[in-house]
């Protein structure tokens, strides 16, 4: 079992930061409404419902209707935060997301709950590993994958202030904090969590802390790894990627998603366009077997040791 980040005793469920931030924003801005598919509990939106009973719209178990209705609400001046399990929200309402949200330019925030393999033993029907690649393929869709409570809060704050469609992943998987609390997020800007000049590890979401732990292991072996938290997959911080390609010998991406077309794909596409370097891409590379979320991250080589192996491979040492 993967050890927690040195010094981090506490872990967090990012849904708490999500709902706290949303409630605070909704107090200031009455345009904000929640839209759910029978998912108040699984989105931890009880506090939102208590504070704003009329502004929490349950559409029942009906994801197409959920996103379509959100488009109508948005076009009539509301700011809907649509919140449902990432697997159903994305796969079931894909055309509404493409047409009613992105193409129509509606001001909709899609909050994909418990993405990746967060649902662990509930299996591949409940895993949402394709969502990042799927959403990234859609023009004008901002795709955010926060790593911890601070990034989650910052992503939600940023999304509320931005006029357009945003997809944000919000995980239930316990993670330690990798940032202090008052983070400001700028889509298109990665956060450098650790400087380094041998190799660059680019991660996002729940595996960022595992990547930091890998960098510590590498440091102990005399390898200096730069670590970026690439919260925003679209737009991507291409400058930070190109700098990494120029200044270090290779790049490893780490994500709780299919790397094909995901963060791994986004970084690879940038690298070949500007400064080709060797890469390795870690992620959930197929339908997962039965196992807990943590078990599956290890299974797919995203233990610190697994990440170290990829970094060594890319460096050839």
């Amino acid at each position, binding site marked *: 079992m993967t050890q927690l980040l040195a010094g981090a005793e506490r872990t967090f469920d990012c849904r708490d930061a999500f709902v706290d931030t949303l409630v605070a924003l909704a107090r200031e801005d009455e345009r904000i409404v929640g839209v759910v598919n029978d998912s108040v509990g699984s989105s931890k939106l009880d506090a939102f419902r208590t504070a704003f009973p009329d502004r929490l719209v349950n559409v029942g178990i*009906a994801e197409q209707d959920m996103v379509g209705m959100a488009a109508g*609400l948005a076009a009539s001046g509301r700011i809907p935060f649509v919140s449902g399990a990432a697997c159903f929200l994305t796969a079931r309402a894909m055309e509404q997301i493409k047409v009613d949200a992105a193409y*129509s330019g509606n001001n909709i925030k899609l909050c994909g709950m418990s993405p990746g393999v967060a649902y662990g033993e509930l299996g591949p029907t409940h895993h949402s590993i394709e969502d990042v690649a799927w959403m990234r393929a859609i023009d004008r869709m901002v795709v955010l994958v926060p790593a911890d409570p601070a990034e989650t809060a910052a992503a939600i704050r940023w999304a509320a202030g931005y006029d357009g469609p945003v997809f944000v992943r919000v995980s239930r998987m316990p993670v330690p904090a990798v940032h202090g609390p008052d983070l400001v997020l700028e889509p298109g800007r990665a956060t450098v969590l650790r400087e380094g000049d041998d190799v660059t590890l680019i991660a996002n979401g729940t595996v960022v802390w595992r990547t930091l732990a890998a960098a510590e292991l590498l440091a102990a072996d005399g390898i200096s790894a730069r670590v970026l938290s690439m919260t925003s997959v679209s737009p991507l911080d291409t400058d930070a990627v190109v700098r990494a390609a120029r200044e270090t010998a290779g790049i490893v991406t780490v994500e709780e998603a299919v790397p094909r077309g995901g963060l791994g794909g986004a970084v690879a596409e940038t690298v070949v366009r500007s400064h080709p370097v060797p890469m390795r891409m870690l992620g959930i590379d197929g339908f997962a077997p039965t196992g807990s979320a943590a078990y599956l991250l290890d299974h797919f080589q995203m233990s610190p040791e697994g990440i170290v192996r990829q970094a060594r491979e890319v460096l050839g040492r």
Partner: protein
Amino acid sequence: MGSLLSHAHLSLEATTRLPAGSPRAEVVAHLAETARQIRLQDLALVHFAGAGHIGGDFSAIDVLTVLYGAVLDVAPDRVEDPERDRFILSKGHVAGSYYVTLAAFGFLPVEQLATFLKPLSSLNGHPKRRSVPGIEASTGPLGHGLPIGVGHALAARLDGSERQVFVLTGDGEMQEGSNWEAMMTASHYRLDNLTVVVDRNGLQQGASTEASMDLAPLGDKARAFGFAVSEVDGHDHGALLDLLGSPERPEGRPRFVIAHTHKGHPISFMSDQVAWHHKVPDADQYATARDELLALTPGGPA
């Protein structure tokens, strides 16, 4: 696809609504004549652009005309007014008739119609939200407009506003499950500010609705989903005006209006012919159809 369409093919003149309180007979005559002009212009649009969905255009034009000509509380200078009524064309493939209707009532310059389907035009083959002032939603994929309309209706409720929402769908379109999700939601939230009009022409893309995927009994379905159902002749401007224009609302229930129509109406060789779903009239057919429209008693029913 041809692109012969030019300014020479624009016959439409922009009109306005008759003032509130005008005698009903005058209003109905004005609507009928406007619908005729819209058909004439739409016919030219499809013929000279070489593409379009004329069958569904012609089954919907009377509903569109009555809504814009006498029912909807919206106007070209009020397209951003939060208190405007909302209209959503869910059967987006009849964009041609929609653009012509919007031009007829001054939402876009008539001259712009000449750009229909041309490179970089804002008059695409399916309506895009805000590509023309007054277009509330991007449609074309079927089964999107009703959920969006329910969202608008719920927004009105949240705002404590009396504004109304109208959605026009195809009948084949009601095979989409997304619509039944939205129907359930509309009645759950008791959205009596919502009116769904179904263009019940009995035909879809490839065949009749009965042969493709039977919808009957459509009224019973809507009733079981909590709607107040009524049926109307979808080409009868007076009947449409009385029904859609009525301010009465069944308490707590959204309305479901089954508008019985004919695809391609009233053209002799198009009417009820599924081939005219997206066939383009050739020169002879154009001339015949035009003559038939011109021969209609001005002001009489189309």
